[in-house]
């Protein structure tokens, strides 16, 4: 029976080609608009560290001046000072702890055929790598070094390793840069977390760095302070160490706890730490520590911009207009079929079978709409990566989104067709048979 309905539907559709294409296109347009905006929000707010994000926390202290807010209305700064970062990391109260910051310097490969270049560097404690599950191609990271004992080791990104060592396993090789000789201990695999949650000072979708170094080297070689450097004191001395000892914030401080239950305990530790610092004359404001897990941190930084939500709501209304439009076109379509339906009724088809046949027909139109919607989605997302070049690292149409598209299309075609179908089923055949 279903096969017969299907055949009949195809016949009807091909007879009313223009109208059918119009209905499917309308549905497809509405669905594409919705899916493009939805997938952007979905992809931008994707958990960058699945299974672990609720245990990895970003730490903030309010070390600002009395009466001033680091971030309006009265929030602590996003970053922490050098002193606090070192104190917290060396206290080792969490499973993993690492502070990191962006910096840069000249890389001068020993091989004279490779031109020197300005390397963008992430200076970090070694526990950065296991905490953020950074994938390694060769070798591994380093342990957190004690305060005054740091080794000149480095981890290269995959592309930097390709640039300097031709992509071969370079673990154990030496690399001259920043005027010193470094030993390569690891090479990363492709790694582009989006959003780049651990440091969003250059934007949430900025590319990862070329080179990773132990954080203490930043101070030993007096490397520049990249990212945000915020200060409130006005009379900081001119030398490099003075900045490190000041209340200037520049480092992103992250810890991983054994489980989310340990949060309270760790908060108490942070509170005790700030109180101890208050006794030393720091932290003039009331204690205002923030311990946000990755997803809370992303929400706090508003990674998905308000624009995206506005587009999504407008697209929803757009889909609604398309639905109404399709509904009125369907109504036209089925009214034109009145006499045919009357004939079938007169020949013995009951209301249910008319209903089933009409439903098959709308579902086919919905399927066509889904197809058009998917094609438009692909083009639309292409357009989005053209408009927002930073998004190209993560924008793609995944399987779930495709399934959702098809489902929405079928549901909306049935919604749009339902009332016209019911009307056509209920009409009295006699008047149309004259």
């Amino acid at each position: 029976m279903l096969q017969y309905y299907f055949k009949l539907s195809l016949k009807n559709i091909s007879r009313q080609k223009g109208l059918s294409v119009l209905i499917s296109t309308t549905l497809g347009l509405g669905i594409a608009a919705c899916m493009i905006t939805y997938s952007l929000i979905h992809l931008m707010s994707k958990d960058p560290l699945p299974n672990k994000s609720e245990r990895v926390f970003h730490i903030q202290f309010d070390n600002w001046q009395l009466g001033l807010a680091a971030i309006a209305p009265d929030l602590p700064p996003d970053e922490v000072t050098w002193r606090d970062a070192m104190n917290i990391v060396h206290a080792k109260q969490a499973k993993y702890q690492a502070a990191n910051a962006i910096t840069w310097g000249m890389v001068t490969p020993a091989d004279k055929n490779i031109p020197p270049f300005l390397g963008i560097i992430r200076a970090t404690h070694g526990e950065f790598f296991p905490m953020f599950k950074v994938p390694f191609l060769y070798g591994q990271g380093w342990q957190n070094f004690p305060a005054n004992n740091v080794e000149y080791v480095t981890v290269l990104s995959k592309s930097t390793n390709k640039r300097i060592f031709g992509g071969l396993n370079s673990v154990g090789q030496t690399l001259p840069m920043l005027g010193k000789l470094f030993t390569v201990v690891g090479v990363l695999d492709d790694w582009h977390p989006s959003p780049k949650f651990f440091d969003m000072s250059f934007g949430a979708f900025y590319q990862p760095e070329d080179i990773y170094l132990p954080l203490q080297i930043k101070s030993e070689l007096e490397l520049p302070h990249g990212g945000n450097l915020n200060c409130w004191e006005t009379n900081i001395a001119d030398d490099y160490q003075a900045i490190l000892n000041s209340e200037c914030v520049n480092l992103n401080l992250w810890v991983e706890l054994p489980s989310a239950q340990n949060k309270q305990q760790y908060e108490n530790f942070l509170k005790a730490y700030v109180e101890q610092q208050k006794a030393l004359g720091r932290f003039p404001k009331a204690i205002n520590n923030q311990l946000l897990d990755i997803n809370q941190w992303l929400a706090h930084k508003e990674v998905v911009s308000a624009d995206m939500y506005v587009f999504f709501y407008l697209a929803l209304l757009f889909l609604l207009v398309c639905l109404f439009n399709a509904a009125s076109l369907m109504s036209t379509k089925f009214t034109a079929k009145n006499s045919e339906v009357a004939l079938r009724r007169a020949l013995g088809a009951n209301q249910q079978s008319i209903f089933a046949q009409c439903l098959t027909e709308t579902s086919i139109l919905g399927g066509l709409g889904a197809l058009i919607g998917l094609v438009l989605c692909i083009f639309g997302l292409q357009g989005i990566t053209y408009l927002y070049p930073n998004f190209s690292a993560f924008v793609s149409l995944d399987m779930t989104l495709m399934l959702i598209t098809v489902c929405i299309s079928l549901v909306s075609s049935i919604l749009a067709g339902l009332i016209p179908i019911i009307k056509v089923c209920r009409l009295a055949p006699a008047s149309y048979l004259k």
Partner: protein
Amino acid sequence: MITKVKKYISQLPFARIAYRPMFSTLLRQKYAMTVLILQIALTLAVISNGLFIASQRLDILQRTSGIDENNTFVLTSSGFTENFDPKTSMQTDLAEFRQMPTIIDAVATYSFPFSGSSEWDDLRTLLGNEQNSVPASSYKLDEHGINALGLSLIAGENFSPSEVLWQTESNKTIPNVVIITTSVAEGLFHTQDWSSLVGKTIFINEAHSAIIKGIVLQLQAPWDPVGQIENSIIYPRVVTRNSARYLIRTKPAMLQSTIAEVERHLGMSNQQRMIRKVQTIQTLRKEVYGPDIAAITILLVVITTLSIIAAMGIGGITSFNVLQRHKQIGIRRALGANKIDILSQFFAENIMQTSAGIFIGCIFAVGLNMFLVAQYALPKLPFIYIIFAALCLYVLGILATLKPALRAMNVSPAEATRSQ
């Protein structure tokens, strides 16, 4: 006279429409009419809000930065050898740029509009006066800065070469003369008599004092974290570092050829450095305003597509009505209605539907805006956007009705005699 006018009016096509039967025809197609009216209403809500958001973004895009955006580019020279001398290299490079015939002027600076980073200083007219603090982004330029950026100095004068401090990165001495923008001047002194402000003293970061040497009309901040993009202060300072960023202003239409020439020249002149990040101000501007350009594009695509869909909906229903009412139209024609009567009947119907849609649409538009205001801190929708969107919908409706109405007009009176 009055009767004459009345008679004339009653002869006009729209006056001769039988409104009551038309109204009841529309009421008989309850489903089709509801769907159509809702469609128009939602379209109005989306178009008015979308246009409003897009026009706000357009305002941001149309702001000028105060510099000669079309004829300026920047590049970085990074020295990497141990005996590289940043100060000599900088002075040689700048001297060479400045005597090239296609270059108007050049300056070494990391701050310029769209560069995306700068320090912000806190300015006031009295020490310790909390109320009168004005934030300003700081520019460090030598005496060529104003000419290289293409700023217009409207009061006072430019720095003299002897006032410019050449500093290393750690030297934070603040010079005792500054140039400020009109926006800073107004914020500090609440006056527009610019020349009266030259020679006045201001305090910087509660620690240093400086005398206002000149006032420039406009210079936007390199980035704006505080919502005061027009606030800038220029210090006569040059910071020497291994990586120097040069901003070069060329003569009109000489930009591309000059970039090539400068790159060739720098590549040969000093082998101890490399040249990178050669960018025109136009490309940087596009990057900075990228999200706004994207928002405008997306909104315009949505508005256009939606208008087309709405027009198709209106056109579709009208042609269906014409098809269904072939016989009635024939009867009316046979009973004496002329072609214009039929035409105006369909237009009147369309205007009635659109009006109903617009009426409901106004409520939707205001509701949608209230939601966006509450959730995403958007400004309130001015009523003019609703009026504009409504006018668009009327025009769209009439255009969409045109074709089917013309077909209806040409239905022959003989149709009346045919059955079904």
